[in-house]
C-alpha cells in the first residue's frame, strides 16, 4: 500500500479526497490552514472544488447547501473559527445533513494562542450551538488516525445523516508522520432519498427543521433524541492499552493519549499495573470501556490540555466508584510522560518498591 510522509492536517485533506468529498468550503485559520491549502491544490485535480467563504459562517452554511444536494462536503477550522460555526452546526444537526467538520483546537478562550489545546472539549462534545443535539466527535492521536478517522467520519455522517467532527490539535495537525494511503472502506450506506436536487420525476422535497406548532416541534425533538440515543449505543469507540489488569488508569484522548502510552510503558517497566483508556469517540463518550473495570480500578488520572473538562465524563462513566484526579497543562503547553506519571504516583501514594 502507498506510504507517504504527510502532516496530520494534510492526512485529513488527502483522506477527504479519497472519501469522495467533492466540495470544501473554508476560511483560513492557524493551525488548521494546511487543510484548506492542501485541498486548494489537490481537490480540483480530483474533480472537486474549494471555495473560500467570506467568513466561517458562510463556509458552514455553504456546507449546508451542498450537503442538502447529497454531495460529500467538508469544512475545517480552529477554535475561534469553530465558535463562529455553531449556529450552522445546530442547523445541520436539526436538518439532519451529513457534513464533516474539522476543529484543530488551539488554546483559548478568546483569541487565545496557537499551541495545542483541548479547551474546546465541552463545546465540541455537548452540542456547541443552541438546542439539544450532539455531533459525533472523533479524536485521532496520530497522523494515520487523522487519515483513517476522516474516512470513517464521512461514512458515519452519511449513515446517520448528521454532522461529524474530527477534533485534534495543532501538534497533531503539524506533525509529519508516514501514512498508509488506505482505500476507502466498502460500507453500505443508506440512499440519499431526501436530497433536494430538483424534483424531476418525483414529488418535491423540502429540507427544513422549522415548526411553529409546539406539538410538531416536540415530534421533531423526539425523533432527534431517538437518533442520538441510537448513536450513543452503537458508536462508542476507544483504544485500550494495558487496561485489562490495570489497577491505576490514565484516561486521555488525542495528544494526551499518545503521551500517556509512554507513561504506561514506563510504569510497567517499574512493575506497576498501569493502563490507559484512550477515548476515540468523545461523543458518544465510551462509557462502555469503563464498565469492566469500574469496580476494580483503584484510581484514575485524567490527562487533559484544559482546566478539566473530560474528567466530568470520566467520573460519570466510572460512577464515582474510584477517585479520578486531573493532570493537565494549558495554553499550548504539553505534559511530559514523567509529569503525568508523577501525578499518578503522588496522587495515589503509589510506592514504586511496592511493585503494585
Amino acid at each position: 500500500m502507498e506510504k507517504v510522509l504527510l502532516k496530520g492536517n494534510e492526512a485529513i485533506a488527502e483522506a477527504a479526497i479519497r472519501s469522495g468529498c467533492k466540495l470544501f468550503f473554508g476560511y483560513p485559520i492557524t493551525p488548521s490552514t494546511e487543510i484548506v491549502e492542501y485541498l486548494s491544490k489537490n481537490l480540483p485535480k480530483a474533480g472537486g472544488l474549494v471555495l473560500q467563504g467570506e467568513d466561517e459562517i458562510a463556509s458552514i452554511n455553504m456546507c449546508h447547501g451542498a450537503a442538502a444536494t447529497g454531495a460529500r462536503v467538508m469544512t475545517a477550522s480552529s477554535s475561534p473559527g469553530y465558535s463562529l460555526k455553531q449556529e450552522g452546526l445546530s442547523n445541520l444537526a436539526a436538518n439532519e445533513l451529513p457534513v464533516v467538520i474539522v476543529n484543530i483546537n488551539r488554546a483559548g478562550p478568546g483569541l487565545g494562542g496557537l499551541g495545542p489545546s483541548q479547551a474546546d472539549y465541552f463545546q465540541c462534545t455537548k452540542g456547541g450551538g443552541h438546542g439539544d443535539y450532539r455531533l459525533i466527535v472523533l479524536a485521532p492521536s496520530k497522523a494515520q488516525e487523522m487519515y483513517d478517522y476522516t474516512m470513517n467520519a464521512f461514512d458515519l455522517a452519511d449513515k446517520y445523516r448528521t454532522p461529524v467532527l474530527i477534533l485534534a490539535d495543532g501538534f497533531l495537525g503539524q506533525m509529519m508522520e508516514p501514512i498508509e494511503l488506505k482505500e476507502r472502506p466498502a460500507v453500505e450506506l443508506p440512499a440519499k432519498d431526501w436530497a433536494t436536487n430538483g424534483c424531476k420525476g418525483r414529488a418535491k422535497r423540502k429540507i427544513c427543521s422549522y415548526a411553529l406548532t409546539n406539538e410538531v416541534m416536540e415530534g421533531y425533538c423526539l425523533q432527534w433524541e431517538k437518533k442520538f440515543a441510537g448513536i450513543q449505543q452503537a458508536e462508542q469507540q476507544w483504544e485500550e492499552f494495558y487496561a485489562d489488569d490495570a489497577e491505576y488508569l490514565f484516561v486521555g484522548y488525542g495528544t494526551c493519549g499518545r503521551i500517556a502510552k509512554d507513561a504506561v510503558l514506563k510504569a510497567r517497566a517499574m512493575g506497576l499495573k498501569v493502563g490507559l483508556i484512550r477515548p476515540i469517540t468523545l461523543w458518544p463518550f465510551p462509557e462502555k470501556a469503563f464498565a469492566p473495570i469500574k469496580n476494580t480500578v483503584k484510581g484514575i488520572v485524567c490527562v487533559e490540555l484544559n482546566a478539566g473538562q473530560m474528567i466530568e465524563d470520566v467520573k460519570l462513566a466510572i460512577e464515582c466508584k474510584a477517585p479520578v484526579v486531573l493532570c493537565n497543562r494549558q495554553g499550548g503547553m504539553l505534559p511530559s510522560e514523567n509529569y503525568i506519571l508523577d501525578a499518578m504516583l503522588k496522587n495515589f501514594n503509589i510506592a514504586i518498591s511496592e511493585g503494585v
Partner: protein
Amino acid sequence: MEKVFGRTKGLTDVPFHYCPGCTHGIIHRLIGEVLEELDIIEDTIGVAPVGCTGFSLDFFSCDFVGAAHGRGQAVATGIKRALPDKIVFTIQGDGDIAAIGTAHAIHVAARGEKITSIMVNNALFGMTGGQMAPTTLAGQVTTTSPYGRDCAVVGTPIDLPKTIATLNGAVYVAAVSVDTPKNIMQAKKAIKKAFQVQQKGLGYALVSVLSTCPTNWGLSPVDSLKWLRENMMPVYQMGELKVAKEVEAL
C-alpha cells in the same frame, strides 16, 4: 368554457398564510409563473431563510431548503456549487438580506455567484412583529423605533440593490414594486430576467420587490399600497439599476 386564469404550476395548492392584504402572495405568484414559463420547476431549488418568506418552502412546487436567518445566500451558494446545472434562488426579506445577511449579500455578488435573489422589502422585520430594519424609513414608527427612526442615532436606510449594483459579479439588479397592475407586470419581467440571467450562466442577479406589511404598518391593505407609493418609492431607487452588457441581449 375556456379557462383564462388559473393557479400557476409553479405553486403548490397549499394556501398562503400571509396576512390579508400582504403583497407577499403576489410576489410568490410572479415567481411561480416565471418558474412555469421558463419550464424550470423540476430543475430549481429554492432557499428561504427566516422571516415571513420563510413560509415559502411549502408554497413553491420546486425543491426547497430552509436556512438560518441571513444565511440563505450562503446555503444557495453551496447548492449551486454542488449542482451547477440547476437553478437556485433565494427569497428573503429586507431584514434578512440587508441586516444579518449583509456579508453574504455582498459576497455572492462579488463572486458572481450564478444564483438569483429575490429581496422582499417592506421596510421592517415583519415576522417578529414589526421591528426596525436597516431599510426602515426616516421617522418610521416600529416597535423598536417607537418615536420614529432617528437617523442621527441609527443612520439612514440602506438601499441595498444600489450597493450590490456596484459589484462586478452582479450582472442584473432591479428594484420593482407590486402596488399596481402595471408595476406587477414590470416586476414579473424583472424576475423573469433574473432567472434567465442564471439560465445563461451570466452571473448574479438581484431583484428587490417593494412589498406591503399592512399588519405591522397598522394600515389597511389599500392604504398600505398608498403608503408604499408615497413613502418607499421616493427613497429607494426604482427600475433596472444595473444591466450588464451580456444581459442586454436577453
